C-alpha cells in the first residue's frame, strides 16, 4: 500500500470504502508535478499510525505543495489530529507511532525525526486545544514560540503577531492560563507564527472563536500563505476550510475517502451534507464515520424525568 503512488495524489477524488463518489470531477494533477512536489512541499505516502492496538490512520496519501493551503475534513475521531501529530513528530507523546509509510518535507524525511528537529525544519504545529503555557505570561508564551529563531527576527515576528491580535498586547503580562478560551486560541496561533514557519499545521484554529475572530484567522491564513507559508489546515468549520484551501482531503475512520480541489469538494453533495451540515435529512446517518458512539438516534429518544 505505502509504496506505489496512491490514488490520493493523482486522481481527482478517491473513492474510499463505503463512500459514494461525488458527482463532480476536478482536474487531475499531472505526474511531473508530483515529482517536483515531493522535493518541494509536504508529502505523505501510505501513512499508517497506531496507538498501541488502535489503528488511527491507514494508507493515507496527502500532499501540500509549497505555498499552498490544504484542508483536512473529518468527523470527530477520524484521525485529523493524528495526522498532524505524525507530521510534527509528537505521536510518541501519546504512545502512538508511524507503523508504515513516509512523511517528507522539502525532500527530506520527517518520520522518525524528533519534534524539536521538525520545528527546526520550519514545520510548526498549532496543537489541538490551545495548550498555552498556563503559568507563564502571554509575553513569555510568545517568547517560547520564538525559541527556535534568532532574537532580531523574533522581535519582528512579535510585532506582526501583536498587531494581528491586539488583545495579546493588552494582556502581555497576564498569565496565559487566565485568558479566555478565545484569547488562548489566539495566543496559541500567535505563538506558532513567532517561529516563522514555512509549513504551518493548524489543528482547528477557529475552535471557540467568535465569528469576527474566526474570519480574522481566515484572513491571517491567507496572509501568511501569500507570504509563502504553506498551510495544512484541520478545521471543523468546513465552509471556511474549503474557502481557504486549494486542495482538500476528507478523512473517515483513518482513511482518505475523498480528495480533490477544494471547490469541487465544496460542491459535492456528500461533503455539503456531512461536513457543511447542509440539507441533512433528520433520519439519515453519516455512513462510515467513526463507528464509535458518536452518532446515535438521539433526536428520536426522549429522556424521562427522574423521580426519586
Amino acid at each position, binding site marked *: 500500500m505505502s509504496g506505489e503512488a496512491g490514488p490520493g495524489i493523482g486522481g481527482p477524488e478517491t473513492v474510499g470504502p463505503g463512500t459514494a463518489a461525488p458527482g463532480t470531477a476536478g482536474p487531475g494533477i499531472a505526474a511531473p508535478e508530483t515529482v517536483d512536489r515531493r522535493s518541494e512541499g509536504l508529502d505523505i505516502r501510505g501513512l499508517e499510525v497506531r*496507538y498501541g492496538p488502535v489503528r488511527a490512520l491507514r494508507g493515507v496519501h496527502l500532499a501540500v505543495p509549497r505555498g499552498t493551503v490544504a484542508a483536512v475534513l473529518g468527523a470527530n475521531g477520524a484521525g485529523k*489530529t*493524528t495526522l498532524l*501529530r505524525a507530521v510534527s513528530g509528537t505521536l510518541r*507523546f*501519546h*504512545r*502512538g507511532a508511524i507503523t508504515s509509510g513516509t512523511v517528507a518535507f522539502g525532500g527530506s524525511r520527517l518520520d522518525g525525526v524528533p519534534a524539536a528537529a521538525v520545528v527546526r525544519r520550519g514545520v510548526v504545529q498549532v496543537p*489541538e*486545544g*490551545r*495548550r498555552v503555557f*498556563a503559568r507563564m505570561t502571554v509575553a513569555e508564551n510568545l517568547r517560547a514560540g520564538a525559541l527556535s529563531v534568532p532574537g532580531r527576527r523574533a522581535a519582528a515576528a512579535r510585532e506582526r503577531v501583536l498587531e494581528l491580535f491586539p488583545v495579546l498586547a493588552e494582556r502581555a503580562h497576564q498569565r496565559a492560563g487566565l485568558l479566555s478560551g478565545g484569547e488562548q486560541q489566539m495566543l496559541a496561533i500567535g505563538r506558532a507564527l513567532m517561529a516563522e514557519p514555512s509549513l504551518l499545521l493548524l489543528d482547528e484554529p477557529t475552535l471557540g472563536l467568535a465569528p469576527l475572530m474566526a474570519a480574522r484567522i481566515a484572513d491571517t491564513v491567507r496572509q501568511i500563505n501569500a507570504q509563502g507559508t504553506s498551510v495544512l489546515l484541520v478545521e471543523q468549520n468546513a465552509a471556511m476550510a474549503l474557502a481557504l484551501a486549494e486542495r482538500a482531503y476528507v478523512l473517515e475512520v483513518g482513511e482518505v475517502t475523498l480528495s480533490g480541489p477544494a471547490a469541487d469538494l465544496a460542491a459535492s453533495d456528500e461533503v455539503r451534507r456531512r461536513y457543511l451540515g447542509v440539507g441533512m435529512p433528520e433520519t439519515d446517518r453519516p455512513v462510515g464515520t467513526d463507528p464509535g458512539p458518536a452518532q446515535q438516534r438521539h433526536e428520536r429518544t426522549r429522556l424521562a424525568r427522574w423521580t426519586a
Partner: protein
Amino acid sequence: MRAALRSVARPLRAALCIAVLAAAVAVPFYLEGFWLQAGLFAMSAAIGAIGINLLTGATGQLSLGHAFFLAVGAYSYVFLSSDLGLPTPLAAVAAVIVAGVSGGLFSPIAGRLKGAYLGIATLALIFVGQHILFNAEPVTGGFNGRPVPPMELFGLVFADTPELVVLNVPFGSLERLWFLGIALLAGAAAFARGVLRGRPGLAMNTIRDHEIAAGVMGVPVARYRAGVFVLSSMYGGLAGVLVALVFQQVVPDYFGMLLSLDYLAMITIGGLGSVAGAVVGAAFVSLLPQLLTRYSDALPLVAEPGSGGVSPAEAARILYGAAVVAVVLFLPGGLAGLAMRLGRVRSKELRWAKSAPAPASRR
C-alpha cells in the same frame, strides 16, 4: 465483552481468595517466629499502605507524614490501655479514632494544600511528632518509649504467657497475633475497596483529576480532602496499633521519616490507587530488607559483615532503591498492575497511573 471477562474472573477470584485464606491459616503451624514476625510487619505495613494509597493514589495528595499517624495509633493504644486502663480492644479502637482526630486537626492544611506543598507540609508532622514523642515523657515515656500491654480479646491474651499449645505447636504471641493481623488486614482492605469502588472513590478520583469540575459536580472538595486525610490517618493508626503489639515496646525512633518514605515506596512499587497494589508493595518493601539480612551469609557478591565490601544491609538498601526505580520505569501501574495485566482483569483504580492519552489533553 468486559462483562464476560468479569464473569470468568469472579469465580477465579473467589477460588484464589479461599486458597490464600487457607494458606494464611496454615502458616503459623509451619513457619518459625522470624517468619511470623516478618509477616506481621508486612500486614501492618499493608494496612498503613492502603491508607496512604487512598490519599496519595486515589486523591492525588502526597503525604510524607504517615509515620506520625502510626505513632499516634501506637502510643494512644499504650496510653489508653495502661494509663487510662481501658480494655485493650477498646483502647485499640479508641487509638484508631485518636489517629483520625489528629488527622482531622491537620485538615486546615490537608484541605487547602495540594501535591508537593502538602507533601512537605506533612513532613512537619514527623519532626514535630518526634519532638513530642521525645519530650512528653509522662505520656510517651520519652526516648526509651513504653511497654505495650498485650491485646486481650475474649479471654485470649496475645502474648507468650499463658502458654498455649495448638496441635502440639506452642502458640506464642506471634502465632496468636498472626490471626489478629490477618483479620485486621482483610477488614481494612475490604473497607478501602468499598470506598474506592463507591461514591466517595469517584469523588476522590475527580478531585485528583479536575478539582474545579469536582466542585461544580457537587463534591465539597476541601471537606473531601480533609475526610480522606482523616481516613488515611485512621489506617495509619491501625497499622501503628498492630506494629506496637508486635514490638511489645514502642520507641520513638521507629516512627521517623524513613518510615514515611517507605510507605510512599510501597504504594509506588505496588501500584498507585489500588488496594491490591498497596498490599503487594507493603509486603515487598517490608520483607525485602529482613530477608536479605537473614540470608546475608548465603547471598553472592555480598561480603561478610564487618569485612568491608557491600554488606547485607547495604545490599538490601540498594536492592530496595533499585526496585523503586525499576518498577516505575518498567511496570507502570506497579506490581499489582503487572498482575492485573497478566490476569487480563483491569481494575479502574489503576488506569490513571498510565499517562493520559491525547484527546483528553485539550487544555
